[in-house]
Every structure is written in C-alpha cells, then in structure tokens.
C-alpha cells in the first residue's frame, strides 16, 4: 500500500508539472520548432507511464512488499536526522564554526549514547575541544587556502 501511495504522489507531481509545461512559451526568434516544453513533457511521460504501469503491476501482485519509509523517521535515525537538519538550518544564522562545533558535539555524543559508551565529563570536554578545533581548522583551510568563504552568521565568526 505504501508504494502505491508513493507512486500516487509521483503521479500527482507529474500531472502538476505537465500542466505547468503548457505555460512554457517558445521564443520564436530563438526556436520556432521545438520550444522549452517538449523535453519536460517527454520526461513527465516516462515518469507517469512508468508509475501507472507499476501501480497496475503492484495491484495485480499477490505478494506485497514492505515499502521502506517510516524507518527513516524512527529510532536512531530520527535523532540523528533532527540534529543534522538543525545543523544545516543554523549554518546561515550562527555561522559555520559555531554550528559545526555544536553539531559535531551533539551528533558524536548522541551516537556514543546509542553505541552504549558511558559519557563522562572529562571525555565530553576532550571531544568538545576537538570539535571546536576541527571546525576552526576546516574554516581557515577553506577560507585562506581554497579562497572559499564559509557562512559567518550573525556572530560574524
């Protein structure tokens, strides 16, 4: 059932995109033969036809396969996913060094907890210092050596 819902979502996206392609107008001076809509329509055609055929195949099939979706938002992965999403969203506001150091500290401690490693104060301090140092080294390597400015955030650091 889960896969049929997934394919249904793909079909809806395909139909919406298909309707949108009707609004892609060609610029006659540059291209009066094909236009910008043809190729997306071919791609949508492949997706929609494939999804429809697969839905028919799944409905006719007696043995149903389990659709993997929810496991991504459960257990160990849920916690790690939340920390990762928070890290990515915080990059802009608090900058690369601070957000990376916090992310590494949280993620490493969380995964250690999952692993069953006892977390003590001394170890936490060492890990935290390593995370901060790693973030600073990476930041300076990219900005000074590679010439790539990583996000500095409102703290400008």
């Amino acid at each position, binding site marked *: 059932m889960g896969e049929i819902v997934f394919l249904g979502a793909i079909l809806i996206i395909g139909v919406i995109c298909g309707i949108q392609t009707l609004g892609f107008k060609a610029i006659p001076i540059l291209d009066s033969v094909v236009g910008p809509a043809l190729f997306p329509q071919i791609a949508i*055609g492949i997706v929609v036809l494939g999804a429809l055929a697969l839905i028919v195949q799944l409905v006719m099939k007696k043995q149903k396969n389990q659709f993997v979706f929810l496991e991504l938002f459960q257990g160990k992965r849920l916690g790690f996913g939340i920390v990762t999403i928070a890290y990515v969203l915080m990059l802009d506001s608090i900058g690369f060094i601070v957000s990376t150091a916090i992310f590494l500290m949280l993620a490493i401690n969380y*995964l250690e907890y999952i692993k069953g490693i006892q977390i003590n104060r001394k170890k936490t301090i060492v890990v935290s210092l390593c995370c901060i140092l790693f973030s600073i080294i990476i930041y300076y390597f990219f900005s000074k050596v590679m010439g790539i*400015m990583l996000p500095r955030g409102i703290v400008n650091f």
Partner: protein
Amino acid sequence: MEILSNLMDFEIIALMIIGSTAGIIFGSVPGLSSTTGVALVLPFTYTMDVFPSIALLLGVYFGGMSGGLIPAILMKIPGTPASVATTFDGYPMVLRGEASRAMGIGICSSLFGGLFSAFALIFCAPLLSAFALSFGPFEYFGVTFFALMIVSSILDKQILKGYISLGLGLLMSCIGSSPIDGVKRFDVGISAMAGGFQLMSVVIGMFAVAEMFNSIKFVGQKNNSVEEIKMDQFFLKFSEWRKYIWNLLAASVIGTIAGILPGLSGGPGSMMSYVQAKKMSKNPEKFGTGCPEGVIASEAANNAVTGGALIPLFSLGVPGDTATGLLMGALAIQGVQVGPILFQTDPTLVESVLYSSVLINIIVFCLAVFALRMFINILNVPKHILIPIIIVFCVLGCYSANQRLFDVYTMLIFGYLGYILDKNGYNLTALILGFLLGGTVESYLRRALIFYGSFEKAMVGSNFGGIFVVIGVLYPIISIIIDLIKKQKSKAKAKELA
C-alpha cells in the same frame, strides 16, 4: 632532444608534482573538482613561461580526476561527479574489508586509463578530431539518447522502477532555465531554483547523505579496520591485468571518446563505461556488491577523459570540457593560440605538452600510492565519529561549488529521497544518469530540430545520428523481449523439474 630536455627539467618536474598533489587534494575534497583546482591555480601561472604553466595546470587537472576516487571508495562520497560510479563497487569492497585492494585497483585503472588516453592524444589526435568534427547536434543527441537507453541493461528485474528513476532524473534536469531560450521552468517562485539543482547536491545527497542515514544502524559494530596496507594486494598482478584487460581497454576507449565529445566529460563517461562493463561481464549480478570490474570501468574511463578532452583542444582549438577550456584560456593569456596551426608554428611546445601528459599520469600514480597510506587510516576512525564528520564534508562539498546554502538544503532533501528510493529498489544510477545527461540531450535535440526543421528530416539528413536513435529505441525493447524469453524458459524448466 629539445622535448626531452623540456620534460627532464627539474623545475618542470617539480611543477608537475606540485600540480598533481594540489589536484589530488582538490579531487579528494567533495565539491572541489579538477576544474575548480585549475581555476584556482590559474592566477599563479600568469608570470610563468608557457610550458611550465601548462605542466602545472595539467598536473592539477589529471590529479583532480584521480583524487576523486579516494572519498568515493573510502566514504562513498564522490569527490567529483566523475567518480560517482566508483562508489557503486568501491565502497562495498571497503565494507568487505578490502579497502587496500579497492584503492589499488582504482589507482592502477586510473593509470591505465590516463596513459591510454595520453597515447591516443599523441598518436591519434588529428584522426580523432576529424571523427569529432563529423558529429553534428543530431549525432550528439543520438549518442546521448543511446547512452540513456542502454541504462535499461543495468536495471535487472526492476525495469519499470528503472524507467521511473530515469524519468525523475530527466525531469529534475529540466528545473531552472531551459537551454537555448532561457525560459524559467518549475522554479515554483524560488529565485534559487532558477539555476536548477546543483549537480553536487544531487550526487552527494543521493549517495553520501543517504548512506550515512543507512550507516547509523552499524554504529556500535566493529569497524573494518585496516591494520596494515598490504602492498601485494594493492598492485594488480599479471594474471589480473590479463583478466581485466578487455574491461580496461573498453573503459579507456569509452572515456577517451567521452572526453573528445563536448558535454560528455567524466561523469557520463564513467557511468556509460560502468554500464558497458556490466553488460560485458559474465557475472553482471555481482556489480554493485563490490565487484573489481565496476571500479576498473569507472576509474579507467574517468581518467581516460583527461587525454580525450585535450585532443580537440590541441587539434581543433575546441576544449572538450570546462577544465580544458580554462587551459585554453591560460594559453591565450600567454599569447598562444591553440589549434591546428600550433602544430606548425610551435611543434616543440605541442609535443612537449603531449608527452608530458604521459609523465604526469605516472607522477599522479606515484603520489596516489603514497597518499593511500595516509587516507586509508580514515577507516580506523570509529563510525560514531566518522558519520558526523562525513556530514560536515558533505555540507562543505555542496556549499563550495556555488557558495550558497540552498544547495546544502537540497542536499539534505536528496539525502532523504535517495534513502527511500534506494531502499525500495529504485535505480539511483538511472536517476543520476538522467540528471547528468538531461540538459545535454535536450540542448542537442533542440539544436538539431531547429537546424533540420523537423525530427523526420533530422533522422534522414544527419550523418549517423538516426542510427543511434534507432538503436536507442530498439535496445530496451529487445532487452525486455530477451528477458521475457529467459523468464519463460526458466519457468518451463521449473515445470519440467516439478
């Protein structure tokens, strides 16, 4: 004699080593390709003479292409788009505890592919350029269309899921401005979407981030630690060279041709080679599970692209990819106009450059062997530390390409999408190939149809583009029929046994 003295000059060799080292570093950092490396090193060449500057830039270019295999094999992060296919079998080999062997096969194949294309550059440049000249837009469309269609051959039992993946990849490539007329498509009012999705966001998200979500379940399990590097496993034995020679040759030919044809560079070249190797193999079911042939196909092809891309540059003055375009710019700054006339006006320079490509490939190989000892220690880092660090490098890889956070956000979305698609049997290879080639296919199709006026006229009027299109259409149909016949035969056998 003058060429030899050029090549044996201490300064030249030192520049080649510096360039190759920088190239390997650029290639091994996700998001920083050999093109980025060449662009960043370019300003340092302004004050140099012509040949030293080319030696330095070629070192960066060749090293960058080889460096991509390091994170691809060890962490499943493609360092460059050209090393995507390396992750398919390289990383499973690491999981099996064969990191030294995977890296060794990758580096030896890179050397073979690089040398093959370097010799192709020396001996066949004018001939191969004439071949490239006979390609019009419809021929390019035919070749790329054919490449997409042969994807069906790697889809195994899940043909429909493969085509859905291919369609999704093509549709994703349509997001942003259209080729030729720049019409905005599917940007949903978000200005960052106007440029479409960044290739590295899709690739890193689908492969590396998805793999990290998968790896969480291994936290707490013992690492496949590499206590010592076994050099006897590292280099290919004579019997292995003999066993894989056709695979190496086929991959090198595909890579060289992909390099010659503009728009097809390393990514599609290595993917096509991987697909072809799987098709040629006696054990295609082993591909994707840590099969050495998979690593060979990808690495030999993506390194063969380097020499291939230089062929049209030196014989026609047409760069094969962005990095060679930058090389052309570097030569122009030095007052050298590349093209067929250069063979007459400065043959020593041309021949020095051609022969230096052989030398640089050997230098890159030696450096890669040396770097292996350092990089392979990554595997000794516990997973609970390695996974967050890899996520940071994924973020860096996506951000570095365009320096915009939108690419990092999309990387995460593609990470989740890649996990779901992969776990449910949808083919990520087909999706990536569709995304990689979508823009090229569309661009050539539109240019061809504008040129000929209609599809029918293009089919009849083009040199051999129509043949590729016909084969491309027939190929999946024949594959499906053969598959059905095989299934019926096995059913009949099962009935007989029952």
